[in-house]
C-alpha cells in the first residue's frame, strides 16, 4: 500500500518534471501581458476595429489564448500567444494608418482631377 503510494507520487513528480521540461525554462511573461493588453487598446483607439478588423480580431484572440495559457502556467505558449497578439496589434495600427492615408490621398487625387477638368 505504502509502496504503491510512493510509486504513485514519484511517477506524479516525474510527470511534473517532464511537463516542466516540455515547457522549457520559460518565465511568467508578466511584462509582455501588460504590453500586449496596451497594444490591443492602442489599436482599438486607432480605429482598428473598423479599419483593420481581421488583424484586430487576431490580436484580441491571441491575447485571450495567452491569458488562458498563463492560468495553465504554460508560459512558453503564453509568450508565443502574446507575441502573436502584439504583432497583430502593430499590424492593425499600421493598416488603420494606411487606410486613413489612402483615403486622404484618394480625396486629394479626386480634388486635383476636378480642378484639372474645371480648368480645361
Amino acid at each position, binding site marked *: 500500500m505504502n509502496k504503491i503510494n510512493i510509486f504513485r507520487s514519484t511517477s506524479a513528480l516525474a510527470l511534473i518534471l517532464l511537463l516542466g521540461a516540455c515547457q522549457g525554462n520559460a518565465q511568467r511573461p508578466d511584462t509582455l501581458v501588460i504590453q500586449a493588453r496596451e497594444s490591443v487598446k492602442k489599436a482599438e483607439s486607432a480605429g482598428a476595429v473598423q479599419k483593420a478588423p481581421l488583424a484586430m480580431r487576431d490580436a484580441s484572440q491571441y491575447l485571450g489564448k495567452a491569458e488562458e495559457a498563463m492560468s495553465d502556467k504554460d508560459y*512558453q505558449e503564453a509568450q508565443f500567444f502574446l507575441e502573436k497578439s502584439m504583432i497583430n496589434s502593430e499590424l492593425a495600427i499600421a493598416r488603420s*494608418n*494606411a487606410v486613413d492615408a489612402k483615403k486622404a490621398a484618394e480625396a486629394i487625387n479626386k480634388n486635383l482631377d476636378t480642378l484639372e477638368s474645371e480648368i480645361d
Partner: protein
Amino acid sequence: MCESKLNKSMLAIGLGSLLLVGCASTPKESSQLNQLEQRIEALASAPGQPQRAPIAVEEAREALEKLRTIKGENSAAYQHQLYLTEKQIEIATELVATEEAQQVVNSADGRRKDILLEAKTKEVEEAKSLAAGIAMRAQELAQQVEDLQTAETDRGLVLTLGSVLFESGKATLRDGAKRTVEKVANFLNEYPDRNILIEGFTDSEGSETYNRELSQKRAQAVRDELVSSGVETRRITTEGYGEEFPVASNSNAEGRQQNRRVEIVIAKSSASDVTSRTSMR
C-alpha cells in the same frame, strides 16, 4: 529515407503542406524562405526616395534571419517565428503603402500649383491672342472711320476720336460724328465684357475750369451716343481732363487740334476697370 523523399515531394507540392507533415526536417533554403525574402526585397525596392519604411523593412529582414537560424521546420519555435515574419512583412507593406499615400498628400500643393500655373499660362496666352484680335479689329475700324486712331497702351486699347466730332466750344456731337460713334459702338459691342473709360481733352484756349467742364461734357456726349447705340451704361466711365495731358503743342493750330480729342480706352481684360490717369499721377 522516408524523410528525403518527403522533402522532395513537399517542395513540389508547396508550402501549405509543410505544416501537415509531422516528421520532416528543415531544408536550409526552402522555397518558403525564398518567397518571404522576395516579398521583403520587393518592399525594399518600392519606388520612392528615400526608401519607404526602411525600419519596418529591416525588421522584416531581421525576422527572416532569425527564422533561418531555427532548426526544424515543424518546431513550435519555427512556426512561431514564421508567423511573426509574415506579420512583420505585412506591417512593412502597410507602412510602405502609408508613405506612398502620404507622398501623394504632401505633393498635392505642388501639383495644385502646377495645374493652376498651367491654367494661368493658358489664360494669359488666350488673353494675348484675344487682345491681338481686338487690336486688329480696331485697326480695321480705324481704316473705315475717318478721324479715328488706335493705339495699344499699358492701360488698354485706345481709340482716339478727333475734334471734328464737335462744333467748336460745344458738347453736342455733329450729325456726321454720330455715325462714327455708332461704328465704334458696334465695335465695342463685339467685346461686351470689357469695361470702357471715355476721356475728354481740350486745348489750352479758354479757362481751365471751362475746359475741364467742356471735356467732361464731351466725354459724356460720346457715352450717351454709345449707350443709344446699345453699349451698356454700366461698362462706361467718363472723365474730363480739360487741357491736361496734351499730346501736342498748344502753341500752334495743328497741335491744338490734336489736343482736342476724346479717347475711348478699352480695358485689357474682362471685368477689370481701365486705370484712371489721375490714379497714375
